[in-house]
């Protein structure tokens, strides 16, 4: 039984890495993740340089009080990767899964697979495992690149706590991408037109990743804070019940919230231990898992009822 699943999974991996379009998107994802570390590190370095310039400027103007240096937590240098996984990572998963069933169906290979002693649920499991392996390999490559670049460019060495946080983030990223892969696979089972399925998933991705967060943003309250020293006004957003309600429907927002906490982007949660952090975000984790499990069950059910096979 496992042999059949593993054979399908291996085939899925091979097919993915033979597809030029998928390789382009994957290359883009890896490239962006890598340059985000470089840009993040150099921007932080520029910030520190700017801080020195600000101190010099204020001293020259005879200022009595000087601002304290910006707090830079080691992992925050990698913070931009949260946006890239949420944005491009999800698209990579869509590109990976949109032809998983409809492609096989159109090429006639689905009938061929079904004619072998393989159960339909095994086909779904095999495809899922194959997709998971591809996503795992991609994230593994990005993790290694990030760790190496992080050490070389920022000159900082991550401690055990930072490595655990980083591994936690990549585990979360793989779950998030798998949710999109599973949803795309479900759409692929249900539709014969690959292009239609692909565009449908792109619309869902847009709604989850951009439309809902922006609607939530528009429903936030903005208080105005006056900085006495600079006489500048800063907008301070605060959640409302409506904005929180809208965000509940967006796994992308939940992923970004957990990701930012794990990668020390939010100073308030940067010193909390990973256990306490995950406990604090348990609701957000469940909100990512529930849609994933729902589409997984639907995929098994749809594959059982598939008539084209």
């Amino acid at each position, binding site marked *: 039984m496992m042999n059949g699943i593993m054979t399908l999974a291996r085939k899925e991996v091979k097919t993915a890495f033979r597809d030029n*379009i998928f390789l*382009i*998107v994957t290359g*883009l994802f890896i490239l*962006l993740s890598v*340059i*985000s570390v470089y*840009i*993040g590190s150099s*921007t*932080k370095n*520029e*910030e520190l*340089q*700017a*801080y020195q*310039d*600000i101190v010099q*400027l204020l001293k020259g103007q005879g200022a009595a009080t000087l*601002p304290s240096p*910006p707090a830079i937590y080691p992992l925050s240098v990698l913070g*931009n990767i949260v*946006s*890239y996984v949420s*944005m*491009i990572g999800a*698209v990579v998963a869509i*590109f990976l899964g949109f032809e998983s069933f409809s492609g096989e169906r159109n090429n006639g290979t689905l009938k061929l697979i079904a004619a072998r002693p393989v159960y339909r649920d095994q086909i779904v499991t095999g495809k899922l495992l194959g997709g998971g392996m591809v996503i795992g390999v991609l994230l593994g490559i990005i993790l290694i690149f990030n760790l190496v670049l992080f050490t070389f460019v920022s000159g900082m060495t991550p401690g055990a706590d930072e490595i655990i946080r980083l591994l936690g983030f990549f585990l979360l990223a793989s779950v998030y991408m798998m949710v999109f892969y599973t949803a795309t696979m479900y759409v692929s089972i249900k539709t014969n037109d*690959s*292009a*239609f399925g*692909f*565009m*449908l998933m*792109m*619309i869902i991705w*847009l*709604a989850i990743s*951009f*439309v809902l967060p*922006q*609607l939530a943003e*528009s*429903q936030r309250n903005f208080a105005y804070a006056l*900085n006495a*020293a*600079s*006489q*500048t006004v*800063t907008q*301070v957003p605060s959640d409302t019940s409506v904005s929180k309600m809208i965000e509940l429907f967006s796994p992308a927002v939940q992923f970004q919230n957990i990701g930012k906490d794990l990668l020390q982007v*939010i*100073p308030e949660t940067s010193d909390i231990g990973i256990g306490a952090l995950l406990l604090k975000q348990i609701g957000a984790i469940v909100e990512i898992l529930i849609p994933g499990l729902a589409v997984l069950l639907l995929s098994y059910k749809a594959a059982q009822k598939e008539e084209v096979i």
Partner: protein
Amino acid sequence: MIIEIAKKEMRDAFRNKLFLSILAMLLVLTGVSIVLGSCQVKAAMDNYNNSISFLQSLGKAQLPPMPNLNPISASKGFVNYIGMIGALLAIVLGNTSISKEHKNGTLRLILSRGVFRDTFLNGKLLGNLSILAGITVLTGIITFVSLIAIGGAALTASEVARMLLFFGMSFLYMTFFTVLSMGIATVSTKGSRALLITVIVWLVLSFVLPQIGDTMDMDNQIPGGFFSTMGMSRDQEHQVLQKFKFYETLRDGVEEMSPTKHYERISYALLNVKPGFETNTPWEVVGLKWINLLGLLAPSVAIWLLTYIAFLRRENIYQSN
């Protein structure tokens, strides 16, 4: 003949389920964002009117002037929706118009009649642009009606002109993606592949490049803003940024490669979302932001010319895919 092809294009578009689904989503979101924006304008106006009534009840003779509520900024959300969903809609429209003819074998049929290749492309473009113009007009009407009926805002002539110019920019932005999509579908031999390639280009132009620009923005790296946290005034901020001119130029250069950024910049200036353009006339804003207008127009023209050349020179046009 061009008109005939354009008419057919419009009829086909409204039979395309995917196009209709995205269009419905765009219209719903336009409605939601404008209604929410109009409600905010109405709430601000009610607040002002209540304050005036309260002051009058206290017998105050000197009443504060009405603050600038900037009702046209209610369209801010619409900029983002056009930036994403409008572009996707334009891509589907452009890709389908070419790829369906390849797929169904009707391209050979059309070209075997007395239709020149340039006529064929012009008809397709005219049809698609008419659809985009119709969508722009429809969303414009929804916006104007909502602002007046729900927001209770009385728009000045200048505000109306700014809104009209803004909708013009939205049309140009969607045109770019239709032209790009048609161009890639014309060059490619397989419609579905062309769609995937166009989506990748869209991702790079609309999400990746602006995201890199954001990442390189020093002020974005700390919640609340780096310079604000440091207690710097605008002048001091500019003084410090002068020392990072190369870095800032590089960041700006990355953003300038994105038509989405050009659209966002000129739209925010026209809608007074970005401060500094309140006292300018609508045409002065367009003049000040000419580089963004050029950033929307020039790529469309260039891609369209390349599409012409590629299609006119193509020799395998009668091969089936």
